[in-house]
């Protein structure tokens, strides 16, 4: 008799080349049938499937004068925002029939490192080396107004992420902390209401789970941390001052990553966590079946060694929940993977 133990695995579907130099970021279109990539070569490439193969559909050039660090599709899928080291954020759309840049957001003093659309698509957040986080409102056709400049980090801000359903914003920084912000409806002022302190080095990226009550963060300290929101009058009896929620670190995944963890993606369909690491590995973590919601345990269910030949910079689950993963690397390549657990 031969017993076959089925192990969760990550199968490579395709390797895509085309960028010159570091590929910093990849972003799925909300419908999951197209994605965008960007990097050191100052171009944005849009990819979709031709038959069974992914191929470049469009290349956007001349939008930026320096490295493009991040790109993000708006929730409606009609706009693309790109953040660049040239201190600007560009908004692209194809109202004219083809993609072109119809708005440029200026204000950051130098490198813009992160950009994110709010769930409604009405707000946009950017962050950068000047230590600030900006909130922009979509004011009309190709018009964006600055709603707030938040100066609460004391070092550069690496990434911003919105809560999946509310206008709550989180930012990760070189100052080792994560800050959470919201708008006060009384005076429309944005402010920081929580500082998440526990990482021992730069926090590179962050991702909310589908409820928005948990946040996963990854860091140069080689750990991943899971944080939970405790609202006023919570059942657990966690003390909450000033009627504001408290965020507590409820789990630290250490001993898995051997170098800086550059990115983390939380699948809103399966609850699986994927990480991109400087040790060239993609890892998948799954919450244990008997996990305590206030002190959860996660198991490493898949380790893809040599996922790339250099640092993995970005990893992201297909938003349709089909367990497809996109990754990109310093090696100039983009890879598409399919995860299977049975």
């Amino acid at each position, binding site marked *: 008799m031969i017993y076959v133990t089925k192990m969760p695995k990550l199968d490579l579907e395709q390797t895509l080349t085309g960028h010159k130099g*570091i590929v910093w970021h990849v972003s799925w279109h909300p419908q999951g049938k197209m994605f965008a990539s960007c990097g*050191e070569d100052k171009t944005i490439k849009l990819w979709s499937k031709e038959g069974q193969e992914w191929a470049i559909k469009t290349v956007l050039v001349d939008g930026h004068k*320096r*490295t493009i*660090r991040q790109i993000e599709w708006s929730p409606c899928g009609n706009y693309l925002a790109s953040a660049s*080291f040239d201190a600007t954020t560009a908004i692209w759309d194809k109202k004219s029939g083809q993609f072109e840049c119809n708005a440029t957001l200026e204000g950051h003093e130098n*490198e813009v*490192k992160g950009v994110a659309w709010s769930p409604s698509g009405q707000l946009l957040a950017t962050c950068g*080396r000047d230590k600030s986080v900006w909130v922009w409102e979509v004011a009309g056709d190709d018009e964006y107004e600055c709603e707030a400049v938040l100066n609460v980090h004391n070092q*550069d801000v*690496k990434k911003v992420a919105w809560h999946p359903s509310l206008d709550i914003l989180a930012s990760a920084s*070189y100052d080792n902390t994560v800050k959470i912000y919201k708008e006060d409806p009384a005076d429309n002022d944005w402010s920081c209401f929580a500082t998440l302190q526990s990482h021992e*080095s*730069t926090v590179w990226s962050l991702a909310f789970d589908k409820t928005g009550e948990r946040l996963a963060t990854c860091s*140069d300290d080689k750990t991943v941390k899971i944080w939970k929101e405790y609202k006023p009058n919570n059942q657990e009896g966690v003390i909450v001052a000033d009627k504001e929620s408290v965020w507590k670190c409820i789990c630290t995944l250490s001993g898995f990553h051997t*170098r*800086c963890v550059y990115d983390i993606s939380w699948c809103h369909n399966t609850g699986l966590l994927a990480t991109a690491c*400087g040790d060239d590995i993609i890892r998948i973590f799954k919450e244990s079946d008997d996990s305590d919601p206030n002190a959860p345990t996660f198991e490493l269910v898949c380790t893809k060694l040599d996922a790339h*030949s*250099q*640092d993995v910079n970005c990893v992201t689950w297909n938003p349709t929940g089909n367990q497809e993963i996109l990754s990109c690397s*310093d*090696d100039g390549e983009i890879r598409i993977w399919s995860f299977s657990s049975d």
Partner: protein
Amino acid sequence: MTKTADNVNPDIYDKGSEREITSSDYDENIEDLFDEREIFDLIRNINDPEHPLTLEELRVVEESNIKVDNIKNLVHVSFTPTIPHCSMATLIGLSIRVQLLRALPARFKVEVEITPGSHASEYAVNKQLADKERVAAALENNNLLQIINQCIA
């Protein structure tokens, strides 16, 4: 604009000898792994940003402060600024890093750090040198790149 060097009168040391070439260097059947000496040869002649001297002559870099792991593809270089308040420490570290990134195969992870205890801002400089996003952004700054290229040339 003239600026006085942080350390006006640094100690100067003799240069070491050239690497001895052995018969195995010519043997195509012997796999040639990277060793500490080879890494040292790549960085010993980097010029100090402030003096007409090399990093070897100032003992900022020494072969004994280099570690190579060919299996883990790791290169670790500790460098020693001539004085603990040297404002050029980040620039020197960046020059070493850039030289190794250009010269070594991409599979290597290069770590450049200050020799423990030799600089007042050791932690801050090390953190900056280890942040590849900051390094990438710095290398897009033409003025800085020119200075680094002069050091490496």
